[in-house]
């Protein structure tokens, strides 16, 4: 039985070893002034400080995914396969919040009936998490029961220590990766509590009120949603940068000869999201749409799964063009009810 923790010189060194082992790696890199997950071939390309603008979900749940193709004959239609999933990949440098997001998506897409295209991609991904030692102003993982060093969703978790990094092996897939890394890892253990405490202390205090799930559900009919959502402009930024949002649309694109059926990201803040073919829209205004987002995250999902559908990465707060803050809105709405 292999040990469950190792020590290494640095996260960079671990990455170097993974690349040396011939693994395909996706890691945060800087592109046009922002951090994004991209394919790296050298460890130096990776940027291991800070938060990527978009979450890590795209690798498993791409923006656009071909479900299948078809070709028109005369008569008949010939079906063609869907996308070929990418080669096995190590997703390196994933923050604990993003890794936890993948864990939530695994639950959603893995539940029966299981989502084959997602699982096909997910099965080829090994997640190497990287604990947060420099949280940002919008970070809120502690408010949703996670921590800067949480292990959810990671196969391996690296936690920077005063000297070197602690490598926690969390899954069999993680262990398999470790087996490829040879001397870069030394068996050993360290306590990450101090790292955790220091990072948490650096975070702005944010908390969700107790009984939020029920409070929000009770506030469903409140007129206050309209005020709360007044500044929301109805774009999809919050959903698209969110590690846990997973709504999608299915569209066909075709011409005389054939076409393809695609799955593309969708967002509940779009007016079109719930528009019926009849022209009726059950969520007719932005207030209803914003309420849906808040309740899905903090009421419906927690009531079913026992935890919020939010990992506290704070991206939606940071990226919102209009300064919407879902924590603030949810707390206010629930409190207003009480």
């Amino acid at each position, binding site marked *: 039985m292999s040990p469950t923790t190792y020590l290494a010189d640095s996260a960079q060194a671990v990455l170097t070893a993974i690349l040396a082992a011939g693994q395909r790696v996706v890691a945060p890199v800087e*592109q046009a002034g922002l951090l994004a997950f991209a394919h790296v071939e050298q460890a130096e390309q990776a940027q291991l400080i800070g938060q990527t603008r978009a979450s890590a979900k795209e690798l498993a749940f791409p923006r656009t995914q071909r479900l299948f*193709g078809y070709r028109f004959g005369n008569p008949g239609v010939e079906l063609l*396969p869907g996308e070929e999933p990418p080669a096995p990949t190590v997703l390196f440098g994933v923050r604990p919040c993003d890794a936890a997001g993948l864990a939530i998506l695994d639950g959603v897409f893995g539940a029966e009936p299981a989502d084959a295209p997602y699982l096909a991609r997910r099965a080829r991904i090994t997640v190497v998490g990287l604990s947060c030692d420099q949280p940002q102003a919008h970070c809120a993982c502690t408010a949703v029961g996670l921590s800067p060093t949480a292990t959810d969703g990671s196969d391996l978790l690296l936690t920077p220590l005063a000297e070197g990094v602690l490598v926690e092996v969390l899954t069999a897939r993680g262990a398999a990766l470790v087996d490829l890394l040879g001397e870069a890892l030394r068996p050993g253990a360290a306590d990450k509590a101090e790292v955790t405490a220091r990072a948490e202390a650096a975070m702005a205090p944010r908390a969700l009120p107790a009984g939020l799930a029920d409070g929000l559900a009770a506030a469903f009919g409140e007129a206050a949603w309209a005020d709360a959502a007044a500044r929301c402009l109805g774009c999809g930024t919050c959903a698209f940068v969110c590690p846990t949002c997973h709504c999608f649309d299915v569209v066909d694109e075709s011409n005389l000869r054939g076409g393809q059926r*695609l799955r593309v*990201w969708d967002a509940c803040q779009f007016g079109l999201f719930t528009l019926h073919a009849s022209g009726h829209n059950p969520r007719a205004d932005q207030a209803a749409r914003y309420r849906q987002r808040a309740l899905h995250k903090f009421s419906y999902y927690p009531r079913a799964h026992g935890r919020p559908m939010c990992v506290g990465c704070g991206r939606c*707060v*940071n990226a919102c*063009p209009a300064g919407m803050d879902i924590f603030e809105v949810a707390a206010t709405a629930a409190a207003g009810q009480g």
Partner: protein
Amino acid sequence: MSTETLLTPSAPDTATWKPRLVAFVCNWCTYTGADLAGTSRTEYPANVRIVRLPCSGRIDPHFIIRAFEQGADGVLVSGCHPGDCHYTAGNYHARRKFMVLHALAEFLGIEPERLQFSWVSAAEGRKWADVVSDVVAGLLRVGPVQPTWGGAGELPVRSLSEPPRPVPEPLDVVGELRATAQRWLSDCRVDVFVGYGQGSLPGRLRPAFITSPDEVDQLVWNEHAVNNLATYLTRGLVKRHGRVGLLVKSCDARAVVGLLQERQIEREQVTLLGVPCIGVEVDGALAPKCHTCDSAWPALVDEVLSAEVPLTPVDGEGLAAEIAWVEKMSPAQRRAWWQAQFDRCLRCYACRAVCPLCYCSQCIADQSRPQWVSKSSDGRGNLAWNLVRAFHLAGRCVGCGECTRVCPSNIRLDLLNAKLAQVVRDEFGYVAGGDPDLPPPLTTYLLEDHEEFIR
């Protein structure tokens, strides 16, 4: 055949490649001119496929984009000579639209050979044959379209902005701002006052909607007041509250002009409070739009806050310098540069959501019969979306820069907008956001509009 090749062309076999030219032509002149080439048995290359439409004014730029998506190597647009239009003015309007499209295509690095325009009359069968031969020869010269949209790889990134400038100390207008808002609300002059309040993150402001005179203390003003509040005018604000009081900077006021011009609001529904502004902050520095802003004082306003405005000379080139930088690249480089940007587009439509002039109740990007813009967030759909967005704002964009500020993927939408604003200014002598009584430049024309780009 794989599914890719059904919709998106794969890299052609250069040995057997023959250019595919799609010609969009008007029914009365060019189609008939092509008929005449036939009756005169004037031979020309068989590479052309004609799509007949009633008028060059009916040739939608989307058709051209779609033709490229469907594997055309080149597109030829042809109609009646000026003065010959069957519908009197269709080609004059078309000429303006194509002037803008032509400039946009060039700016994006699409080789000029691929997008050609001509006037061919019903009597010019010979000219039709010559034009087709010539365009096909041009396509042979530039070769097949490389299906590069959608997989750019790494590209050199350069920060284009002029050296960042510090943000000046904000003017102290808060007291008068609150007092004015209070007065307006107390006097029932407005039912809601829209200004800026403190955001939930440190150093951020966000829109604030004040409906009671007691709440005016929530209003603040400083260099973080970035949002263009005019956007809210077409987002149900009037319907929900009635008369709106709106705090506007000079750039925001220009957007209000656009909305008046396009009849989206009635002047009397809105009471404008102008705030003198000497610059706002984006990404820790003075916003690029402020480098070249020459007016601290908004126009059109009903009242204006008083302040001592320091004289700051407008000496920057702002976006013009960056446009020039982009234009210095070769077409291929330009194309790759833009492609890398568009590839990042998530299709979150934040650019659309914040734009004060994107107010359609149903955006064409959301329509599916026909599907104007591919919904896929890949090279194809992203190119179409970004082209359409820029084209629809040509002559209308007031340069508030909100789209670029909010883009989570840092796409330089402001450069596209500013380039088209340049074209509209240079070609049609028009600057958006000035006079609410002028017609928008793409809804009018002059007989003497330039047409050097048309054969």
